[in-house]
């Protein structure tokens, strides 16, 4: 059994008005492992994280880190013993990258030269070129800023790392890369990491253990990620895990099987002539680009269309195009934005189903 590093003992946080943000939370967080707090917004995951370094003080209950009550240490000192990474990198725009990384050692009274030297080492640790050290944060990309944020959190070599949705604001490709990087770092460093995210995929990728929080600040399930996916403890967890995972997964599935039907289009200036019988008509401009839909018997009025599906995009985009269209027919366009045809929601669903069966067959 792993040793506990952080323990919540009946911790409750109530805000004015009596609504509990965190409700009687008891859990123990393993030393040297990544524990992910995941849940919908308003579930108290960030509040719980912030109680560890006393950014938020609990209304009742006790929190210990390495066996010591967090309130037994002055808050600034406690915080310097824990790295903190947040969603917006929170870097100081007026200080160079190196000086940003050196912040906590400097606060601890380490000399400027020594803390800069340490900062240079850390640049390398988080995979940034040393030439970036003299830049200001605004001269870095979002992903690089998050790396600097991680380096800064590691600078004083704290045993605990608190990460509050650190990768939520970067684009998906960079997020993937940063996640891999964190796992690589953790293999060498073996810190006790508490990681907050609303993304169940991220939680299952990173977590040694995952704590699923439900609205109202209740801990719904706390287990290894495989177990949460395999055996959700209750309907809330099942819904949270299932819904997000299924739809997200479509973004990785190609739309090859989706049939694109020929579209019946009408030009804007031809509207109102001969649409008596009443089907939805796709209205296009003279170049053949979609403008909107004309409803049955609507005369010359048009309704804005849904999202467009570009040929070759994923199943997720195909389904979204069909579902967001007022006519129930998704509009497919070619690379020049001209209408290439229409696709039907039920057919997209059939492809998704076939895709799911195929995947199950492989497992």
């Amino acid at each position, binding site marked *: 059994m792993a040793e506990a590093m952080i323990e919540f003992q009946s911790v409750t946080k109530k805000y004015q008005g009596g609504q509990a943000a965190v409700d009687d939370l008891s859990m123990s967080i393993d030393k040297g492992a990544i524990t992910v707090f995941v849940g919908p917004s308003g579930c108290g995951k960030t509040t719980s994280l912030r109680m560890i370094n006393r950014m938020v003080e609990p209304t009742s209950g006790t929190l210990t880190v390495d066996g010591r009550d967090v309130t037994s240490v002055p808050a600034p000192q406690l915080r310097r013993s824990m790295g903190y990474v947040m969603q917006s990198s929170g870097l100081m*725009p007026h200080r160079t990258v190196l000086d940003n990384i050196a912040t906590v050692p400097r606060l601890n009274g380490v000399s400027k030269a020594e803390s800069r030297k340490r900062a240079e080492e850390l640049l390398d640790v988080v995979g*940034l070129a040393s030439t970036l050290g003299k830049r200001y944060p605004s*001269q*870095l990309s979002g992903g690089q800023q998050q790396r600097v944020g991680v380096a800064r959190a590691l600078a004083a070599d704290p045993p605990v790392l608190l990460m509050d949705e650190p990768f939520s604001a970067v684009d998906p490709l960079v997020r993937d890369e940063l996640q891999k990087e964190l796992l690589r770092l953790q293999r060498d460093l073996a810190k006790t990491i508490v990681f907050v995210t609303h993304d169940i995929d991220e939680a299952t990728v990173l977590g040694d253990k995952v704590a699923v929080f439900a609205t109202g600040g209740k801990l719904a399930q706390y287990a290894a990620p495989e177990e949460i996916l395999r055996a959700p403890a209750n309907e809330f967890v099942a819904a949270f895990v299932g819904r997000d995972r299924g739809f997200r997964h479509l973004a990785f599935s190609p739309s090859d099987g989706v049939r694109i039907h020929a579209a019946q289009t009408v030009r804007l200036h031809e509207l109102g002539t001969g649409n008596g019988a009443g089907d939805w008509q796709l209205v296009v401009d003279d170049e053949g680009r979609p403008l909107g839909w004309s409803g049955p018997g609507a005369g010359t009025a048009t309704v804005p269309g849904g999202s467009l599906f570009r040929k070759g995009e994923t199943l997720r985009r195909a389904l979204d195009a069909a579902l967001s269209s007022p006519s129930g027919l998704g509009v497919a366009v070619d690379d020049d934005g001209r209408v290439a045809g229409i696709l039907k929601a039920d057919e997209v669903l059939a492809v998704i189903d076939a895709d799911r069966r195929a995947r199950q067959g492989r497992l």
Partner: protein
Amino acid sequence: MEWFLANSGTVFTLAGQHLVLAVIPMVLGLLVAIPLAQLARRSSTLRAVVLTASSLLYTIPSLALFIILPTVIGTRILDPLNVIVALTIYAVALLVRAALDAFDSVDDDLQQAAVAMGFRPLARFLQIDLPLSLPVMFAGLRVVSVSNISLVSVAALLGIGNLGMLFTSGLQRDFVTEVMVGIIAILILALVMDAILVVLERLLTPWARAAGATPAGPERATRGSAATVEAGA
């Protein structure tokens, strides 16, 4: 021009006096306004009180203030201290608002990050709030600088030495050239002060230029990931 050349010594002396009378209140005003602004940030009531009070202060006519002050603070009417106190009051009135805006302009996430890293309040103020509020603060200072330089000349009506005396004496002697020289000198003084503030701001906020000059582009991001590969290998 001839008149100016003949009297350039006097003009320079007056300009020096003018500058002292304008700059000292600006510095004093800043020193008073910063703690006031910090106080105002503590609650919305305090903020309303401080802002209203400072606006009211600014509506007091300057000439009236120059005349009333001696009885309030016990100076002689010709004491330049009156001008300094009066202009400090105006500077505070303008700068409290500017300082408040300046502190508000500091990113909230950054404040949170600073707390999370273990900054104590004073260190956070000196190392984060103060430097990051400089750009907005300097905008306020530039307004005060122009306003002070223009207001100082009013004190010439009381006979306190500054470039405004070129107006009063020019008027009395019906000598337009002297008035013109006064106007031009004040204009130049204001421009020079403004230029000094701009340069000072640039020196104190090197990061602001870095942000404008080289925005983060895809090229940089690529270089970053290349470095990652190296480090990972």
